[in-house]
């Protein structure tokens, strides 16, 4: 499986070397169909525990589809079919013993459009821990809510108005609220599907800074159509094209010296 991946030489980073970080998730020969149409073709890839991993590629190449296989979100799409093996800490997430609700708490997801519940800021964050039974008492719940909002970089902005509706926040704040919501159930992996595409540059910068801070605590996988963003936030980058994984390697290598012609054409703007 490592054969068809381009593993490039190690370069220095302030945190553990992305090549050497322990693998958190692992996909082996994963394919996805929508009805008769194959959207992902035999993708094998490892996601590092301490890494931000970016998925890039032209629109429609299957980034979101593949991302959704990592927490079985495709299960909710009628006529979507997944083949291959995906492991979380070595455990088959499509195995018969896997509790999907539990899985989605361990592998959380943040979507393109911020989608807070039409409830209070507090409730948006408290909802997950409550249904997962993570808080025994109200005080515990308060603590989880505060900690999650803090980690999401939102606490200072909302501490005095926790009972206001989540939908009253600005777009960037809503997205950080969604990240707080994902964090609240204490996940191991956070999947983000174009989390900044609806945000202005300042709100985008705040999310990117947040991703940087969350790195190390959670394995993060981010789909982005913005290559500069992939370059800024990730340690490893995977380039997808027409449902295939074309090249996967260190972000610094991919953007300065990609090995595959199709990757180069895409990132230099020669695509199509």
């Amino acid at each position, binding site marked *: 499986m490592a054969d068809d991946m381009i593993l490039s030489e190690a370069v220095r980073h302030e945190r553990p070397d992305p090549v050497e970080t322990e693998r958190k998730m692992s996909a082996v020969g994963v394919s996805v169909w929508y009805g008769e149409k194959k959207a992902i073709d035999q993708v094998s890839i490892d996601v590092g525990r301490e890494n931000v991993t970016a998925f890039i590629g032209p629109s429609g190449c299957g980034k979101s589809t593949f991302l959704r296989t990592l927490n079985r979100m495709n299960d909710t799409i009628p006529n979507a079919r997944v083949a291959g093996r995906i492991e979380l800490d070595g455990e088959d997430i499509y195995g018969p013993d896997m509790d999907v609700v539990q899985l989605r708490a361990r592998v959380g997801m943040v979507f393109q459009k911020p989608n807070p519940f039409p409830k209070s800021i507090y409730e948006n964050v408290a909802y997950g821990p409550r249904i997962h039974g993570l808080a025994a008492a109200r005080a515990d719940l308060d603590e989880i809510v505060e900690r999650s909002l803090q980690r999401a970089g939102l606490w200072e902005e909302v501490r005095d108005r926790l009972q206001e509706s989540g939908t009253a926040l600005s777009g960037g704040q809503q997205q950080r609220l969604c990240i707080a919501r994902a964090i609240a159930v204490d996940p191991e992996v956070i999947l983000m599907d174009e989390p900044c595409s609806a945000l202005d540059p300042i709100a985008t910068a705040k999310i990117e800074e947040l991703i940087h801070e969350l790195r190390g605590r959670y394995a993060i996988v981010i789909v982005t159509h913005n*290559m*500069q963003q992939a370059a800024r936030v990730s340690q490893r980058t995977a380039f997808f094209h027409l449902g295939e994984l074309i090249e996967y390697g260190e972000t610094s290598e991919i*953007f*300065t*010296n*990609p090995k595959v*012609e199709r990757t*180069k*054409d895409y*990132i*230099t*703007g*020669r*695509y*199509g």
Partner: protein
Amino acid sequence: MATTGHTLKAFDEDLEQLRASIAEMGGLAEAAISNSMRALVERDAGTAQTVVEDDKKLDALEAEVETRAVQIIALRAPMADDLRDVVAALKIAGLVERMGDYAKNIAKRVPAIEQSPNLRPLSLLPEMARIVADMVRMALDAFVARDPVAAGQVCARDRAVDDFYNSIFRTLLTFMMEDPQNITPATHLLFVAKNLERIGDHATNVAEMVYFAASGSRLGEREKGADTTVGG
């Protein structure tokens, strides 16, 4: 080089202009080397003065390349081979500008040497200058063609330049020992040889940048041609 152009055509034009400016600089540097040598051999102070004057064009072109490169980085956010190209262009412009300075320095010595008796190693200098000018042309051609193989060949020739320098150095030393009157003109000629040797080094550095831009990796120490000159 990628087979297709950028989706954004203006980006291609920017990069083309950058290459054109670098190529123009290379032509000027090459001319400065051969003209300064001709001025030296023919004891022609007028030509020497022209070389000194013309160096301003190289300075101006370097500034132009710098401005363009910074603009491309800021406005186009180049990636991969494009990024390497722009970075290489920046460094190459600086190297070629300094080649011009060395040629100018040779030209400036022409009036001082004009008066002196004809020293024999002078015959070695034009040959050395031809090789060096050749290396400059090859290195710049390799940049324009994005040809890593041609770039490697430039580096291989640096050894010959070092050999020339070493024999000129020894010969001039003998002259100085033979007759103290030779010391001043011989010292000027030694500086001329040293300037040529430095230009050769710079051509090698240009070739190394070309190799990096075109291939994404660096030339190994072995291919680089380590400094083999005596006396630093």
